[in-house]
């Protein structure tokens, strides 16, 4: 890889890293590098300084904090998908993480890095959005909570401010009675999702009490399929699920690329939502 020239700072403390980022708008955080390095390689990004946060203490690891799980930003995908806490308390995160790229990428790429990158084709943003996760941003001024619904602003753009670093994410525990599924549609195992659907469903007496649906790659940001969520409320698990899922593409503006045109993506969103809901609801 032959990137353009940049300076490199290995931060010893979060404060130092925040300071470096605050003082230079064109500085970039280097976490696992799995999204940033390809951009550097293609010379699509010309940062002045890479602020390496790889050795900062306290940014990595998964913690059970009672009503939520805290996932440190620098926790690798591999750690996340193997974490007993994640698998027990928020299995949807583990399921989606297991579909990210390939083992090599999952050993270097980080949970926080992939979210802060804000790629709507990434698998994790839709999941955290569906689970109403809370992003914890740190800066010289202290800590700030950003609800997932406010975090993803536009394509590759988050609401992190200059000088802010994503320190971790809080994933609320949904409690008993929930089922989960991440339905990823892609052409090869390592390829991005053409469309992905993250579903969490709470069943009660054979009916859907509540459903959460996040959509991957159906717009410039990850999206919630709110119309589906509303339509599913109270629906018996069975024949009525499919019509409810017909609303999956409402309010989306899916991209056109080599793998899919928007009309095909809208169609896929409906089919995949139906499948994801079915699996999350434990339907046969």
């Amino acid at each position: 890889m032959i990137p353009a020239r940049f300076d490199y700072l290995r931060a010893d403390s979060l404060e130092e890293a925040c300071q470096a980022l605050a003082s230079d708008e064109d500085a970039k955080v280097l976490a696992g590098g799995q999204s940033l390095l390809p951009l550097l390689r293609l010379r699509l990004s010309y940062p002045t300084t890479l602020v390496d946060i790889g050795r900062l203490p306290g940014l990595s690891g998964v913690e059970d904090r009672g009503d939520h799980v805290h996932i440190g930003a620098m926790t690798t995908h591999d750690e996340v998908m193997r974490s007993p806490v994640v698998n027990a308390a928020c299995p949807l995160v583990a399921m989606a993480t297991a579909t990210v790229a390939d083992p090599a990428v999952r050993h270097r790429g980080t949970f926080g890095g992939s979210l802060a990158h804000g790629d709507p084709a990434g698998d994790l943003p839709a999941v955290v959005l569906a689970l109403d996760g809370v992003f914890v941003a740190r800066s010289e001024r202290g800590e700030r909570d950003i609800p997932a619904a406010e975090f993803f602003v536009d394509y590759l753009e988050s609401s992190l401010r200059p000088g802010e670093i994503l320190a971790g994410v809080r994933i609320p525990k949904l409690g008993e009675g929930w089922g989960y599924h991440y339905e990823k549609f892609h052409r090869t195992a390592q390829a991005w999702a053409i469309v992905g659907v993250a579903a969490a469903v709470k069943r009660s007496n054979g009916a859907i009490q509540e459903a959460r649906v996040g959509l991957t790659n159906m717009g410039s940001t990850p999206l919630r399929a709110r119309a589906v969520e509303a339509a599913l409320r109270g629906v018996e698990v069975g024949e009525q699920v499919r019509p409810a899922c017909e609303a999956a593409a409402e309010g989306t503006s899916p991209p056109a690329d080599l793998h899919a045109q928007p009309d095909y993506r809208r169609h896929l969103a409906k089919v995949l939502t139906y499948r994801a809901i079915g699996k999350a609801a434990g339907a046969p």
Partner: protein
Amino acid sequence: MTELDAGLVGEQIAESGQVAEPSGRREIGRARRRKEDARLLTGHTRWTDNLQQPGMVQVMFLRSPMAHARITRVDVSAARELPGVLAAFSGRDFADEQGSLPCAWPVSEDIVIPDHPPMAVSEVRYVGEAVACVVATDRYRAADALEAVEVDYEPLPAVMDMHDALTPDSPKVHESGNKAFSTTITSGDVEAAFRDAPVLIDRTYIQQRLIPSAMEPRAVLASTDGDTFTLWSSTQIPHVLRVMLAVTTGIPEHRLRVIAPDVGGGFGSKLQVTAEEVLCLLLTRRLGRPVKWSESRSEGNLTVHHGRDQIQHVRLAAEADGRIRGLRVELLADMGAYLMLVTPGVPMLGASMFNGIYKMDAYEFACTGVFTTKMPTDAYRGAGRPEATYAIERVMDELAAELGIDPLEARRRNWIRHDEFPYTTVSGLTYDSGNYEAATERAMALFGYDKLRAEQADRRDRGDPVQLGIGVSTYTEMCGLAPSRLLGMANYGAGGWEHGSVRMLPTGKVEVITGTSPHGQGHVTSWSQIAADALGVPFDDITVLHGDTAVAHKGMDTYGSRSLVIGGVAVLQACEKVKDKARKLAAHLLECSPDDLEFEAGAFKVRGTGASKTIQELAFAAFTAHDLPEGVEARLDSDATFDPDNYSFPHGTHLCAVEVDTETGMVKIRSYVAVDDVGKVVNPLIVEGQVHGGIAQGVAQALFEEAVYDADGNLLTATMADYLLPSAADLPAFTTDRTETPSTGNPLGVKGVGEAGTIASTPAVVNAVVDALRPRGVRDVQMPCTPERVWRAVQGTRGGERS
């Protein structure tokens, strides 16, 4: 100087344990693990990019962002001023010495071979064409300096579509126009075959453009001592390259050494004389420093020659019972912007193969080569034969559908029976041997053909959203490129022989020198097996040297499934000559007639007595030369050049079952059975590897890979995020087996296996996809059969043709 006691040294060698015992087993046919692997897999490798030379510098090329433009200004002065930069040049700086990249295959009288400067001087004709270069102390500085080179372009219209390119008012790629060549081959009375034919099939298929993706990207290193030049290149063809570079650059052949060190795959993409090879030589001549170039993967996707890219119009006339009367093929072949080494020859390699394994009375092949403003195409695994096989195997399924019979039955009614070989086909080739019935029967049994057909019927009846499709491909291919006589008739610029030599070393070890240039095929192992059997020496006592024109001085290199069929036979013949010499020496030492000697397990034995001499003893006796018979030289070393009389024709039956999700368009391969007949097998493990890799590559064309240019000529698939290669995770476990019908054209009975899997598998997979959807009126899905294309075919909209 100590006097050498020959007897003592000989004993020492024998007692040192260095001479391993021959195993007594035949080596040919053994699934030997490859000698190459331990070194390659543990990183003890010599890829061109790993090589270092004192004073070495790096060159990088600035590449055109325009598909077609006049170059009005190139200013490299700012780049020259940057730190670490030694030199920067435009194409004009080399205009007088860079010559034109060669095309060795003028396939027709009317062919136009345009000037192809390694670095563009006045006009660029594809995105990625080199317009300037920077030489710096390292690649980082060179890459930075490239950004300081200024080029002004005057845009010209891109020419992207072959049909449009041939219209009279199309913009021209070259002044001479957009037609590179046209040619027609006719056999039999085609008009009569089609007149009043009870069954007519008329189809058009698109062979999409592919990007060869060898594991090792290309790299070149050139150096000179002021007198001689050495070029290391990640090439399949060091010998051909040396000749062509001598002709192109004017560096006399005897002062140019070409080395292909470890080469990590080629698939035809390294069967080329590249701009970068020529320019590295010219740069080292101008600068007096070793100059290296290494491509990035994205640079490679733009500038490695591409493969396929044909539009095939195929018409087949048949009797009511399905017997084929005649076949007409009209081909448009996209040459890209220039004719490279064998660009126009690729469609012609398929010209005689569209009739496949089938008997018919008449055949017509018409091909037009078309210039477009894209990267030139050239050989890619199979080169012309996968395209031909795809067309005929697709059309055979259409014939079956038309008649309402099983696709295998349509084939049975037309194929050459095993008792009809050797068989001269309608296109004039003589197939040496084969048994299509046996391979098909075996494949059907392994596949569970009838059971899967039953499941297919059941899913159709139930209206299952996931439909099952079964695809058939009963392919043959033309291997062992090529008999020199036939190449001469085809106006190819070289012969097709191969050279092998054997050096018997004093200690009884053996050096085999081959003119083939392995880059993943395992020749070191297979040639060792051939020599071990022929000479009776242990497998481990043999080394194989290759890929360096100073070591392996004669050769025609590796491509076209030729290495074993021609090069392996040359090694065998050289071994036989060694044995002839050894026999004379043994007879002399054992004081008997050569006719009284029998050769067994590496030793000449006097019939009826216990007296014998091992070949190792004889090698040492030849080395000491103390007691040689009259007229025998002090060596057993021998060489041989083999030129076959005919091609060889492997064949096989591949069966593929796919599940097509009609709601999403996703195609999943459920099972895949390949029964190949590649003649005699030297190393079953290597054959298995070739078949697996070949199938993967053919499946990739069917389902995944496509080089996509936009209307302006920009390559949209320059990275592997956009150009999809399947990995093991995307492929099923293949079931493979073999039948064995020896070739009659060479003493090993071998046929070649390098391209078989790729040639066979593409139509098997697409036939399966179409088979799954045929009840819905689908009869074609354009490759690659992406989920979106399949879904649209199901919807009856774009991307799939409906009847």
